[in-house]
């Protein structure tokens, strides 16, 4: 039997596959397609201190092998999420990772505190890398000092393990990773979206009302793999890898690069059953390439494995 289980700070995953934040809402919609209990975990949509209505539409655009989004962190606010959304997920008996966002550090703290007080969340994912909001987000995600500061402050108010989600829109991803590790992060999530733009030829305007958006999907997979490989060599905390995953083979590629678990985002839109399908195929794929377990494969194929 191929062992799919993964142990990460605060998380006992029966398999390494979870839907990525923002691509799965709070789970309700996809629970109509399959039993969420099959998932390794769920990462929920970003929560902010109070309700956010997000950007004007259009908020998504299609690109070659990918898409742009500029949702703008729309969410009901942390209190309503705890009240109306988490109880549903709790029934599913899978670990829940709450994605935390804010425009100032106090807001991150406040949201983290709120999640910390429930027993319905197993870990936090700090979204310091959302390119689609005017304030916060990105600026924390591109400056190592700011990133470290948010991490530290959130760690201080929270007993939950903290995974910091890194932005790929930086010159030196290692620096970001090392800064958040030093600040106490329990793990790293990577990558968030690359900032991109599409211009509509007819209207002669950026297609997205927000003008720029985050590029996700298979198009960015090589960037994700490269960055995970790079970061893996410089930190010792675990990595949740994401960026363009749409098959069990992709999952293995992320594990080889150094991811300890993975998240699937954009691919849910094309195939709502993608997560359980990948989970079902993963043992066969691991076996085909000579691995007995997920743990076996982690980090076995990155550049550090050979240099």
């Amino acid at each position, binding site marked *: 039997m191929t062992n799919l289980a993964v142990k990460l700070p605060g998380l006992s995953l029966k398999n390494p596959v979870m839907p990525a934040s*923002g*691509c*799965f*809402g709070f789970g*309700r*919609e*996809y629970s*109509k*397609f399959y039993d969420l209990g099959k998932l390794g975990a769920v990462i929920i*949509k970003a929560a902010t201190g109070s309700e956010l*209505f*997000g950007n004007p*539409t*259009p*908020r*998504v*655009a*299609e*690109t070659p*092998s*990918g*898409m742009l*989004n500029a*949702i703008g962190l*729309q*969410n009901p606010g942390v209190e309503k999420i705890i009240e109306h959304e988490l109880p549903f997920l709790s029934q599913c008996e899978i670990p829940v990772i709450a994605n935390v966002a804010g425009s100032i550090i106090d807001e991150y703290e406040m949201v983290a505190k709120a999640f910390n007080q429930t027993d319905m969340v197993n870990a936090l994912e700090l979204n310091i890398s959302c390119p689609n909001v005017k304030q916060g987000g990105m600026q924390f995600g591109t400056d190592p000092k700011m990133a470290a500061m948010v991490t530290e402050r959130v760690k201080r108010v929270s007993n939950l393990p903290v995974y910091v989600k890194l932005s790929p829109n930086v010159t030196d991803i290692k620096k970001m990773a090392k800064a958040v590790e030093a600040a106490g992060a329990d793990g790293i999530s990577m990558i968030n979206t690359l900032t991109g733009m599409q211009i509509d030829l007819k209207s002669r305007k950026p297609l997205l009302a927000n003008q720029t958006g985050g590029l996700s*999907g*298979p198009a960015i997979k090589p960037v994700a793999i490269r960055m995970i490989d790079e970061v893996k060599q410089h930190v010792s905390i675990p990595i949740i890898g994401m960026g363009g995953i749409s098959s069990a083979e992709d999952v293995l590629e992320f594990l080889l690069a150094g991811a300890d678990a993975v998240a699937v985002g*954009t691919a*849910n*839109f*094309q*195939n*709502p*059953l993608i997560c359980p399908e990948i989970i079902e195929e993963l043992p066969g794929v691991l076996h085909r390439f000579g691995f007995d377990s997920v743990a076996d494969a982690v980090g076995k194929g990155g550049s550090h494995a050979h240099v």
Partner: protein
Amino acid sequence: MIKKEMVRVESSSLVARDTVKMVLENEYISRLAVPGQFLHVEAAGHTLRRPISIADADREIGTVTIIFRVTGSGTKQLASCQPGMTLTVLGPNGNGFPFMQAGSRVLLIGGGIGVPPLYYLGRSLAVKPCTVKAILGFQSAADVFYEKEFREFAGTVIVTNDGSFGEKGLVTDVIEQAGSFDYYYTCGPTPMLQAVTRKLKRKPGFVSMEEYMGCGVGACFACAIPARDGGYKKICKDGPVFPAEEVRL
């Protein structure tokens, strides 16, 4: 309930310029489909699915019909699908048009590719029976489709922007001609919806809306639009049909 279903293309034909009618075999969807709902259709080689309204459904033989205009690369790819090929769709998605009680007089107002869902709706209302009238607007003669089909159950006025077929003008120019009615249902480009709802603001009506979509099932917030009450609505899940007074156009 929305499912991911395989559908077999039974037939595909051109009903107007760049406008394809496709009949899809799928028992489950044909059985559940309600007028106003849509399918989220796979376009091979594309990241995102395409939302296309259900233009008709036949439970007996297990088919649903879609009618779409080739506007970009996804619908072009779809248009190239030959009978016999299979594709996956999510569906039926969203909430359809609410039916009013038998005996009501309803007016359908459709523009361009907003016409298809009104066909299934009108046909269904006519058998209740309701009295159905239709105003259908198109760019020009080459774009007109389904006139005959609508006439089977509805007094129908066709308008074209350039007057090359039917009356010349916009749908709102001929609303008076339709006489009195109790409810209206409208679907079409946003400027048309704005004009129609403004003109008919004292009448109860329902609009079917469009927005760029990610998931199509309510999970990604791509299609969220402000609601009149200050909250928001997801077009894919709460809509695409809304009471005219509930949304800001």
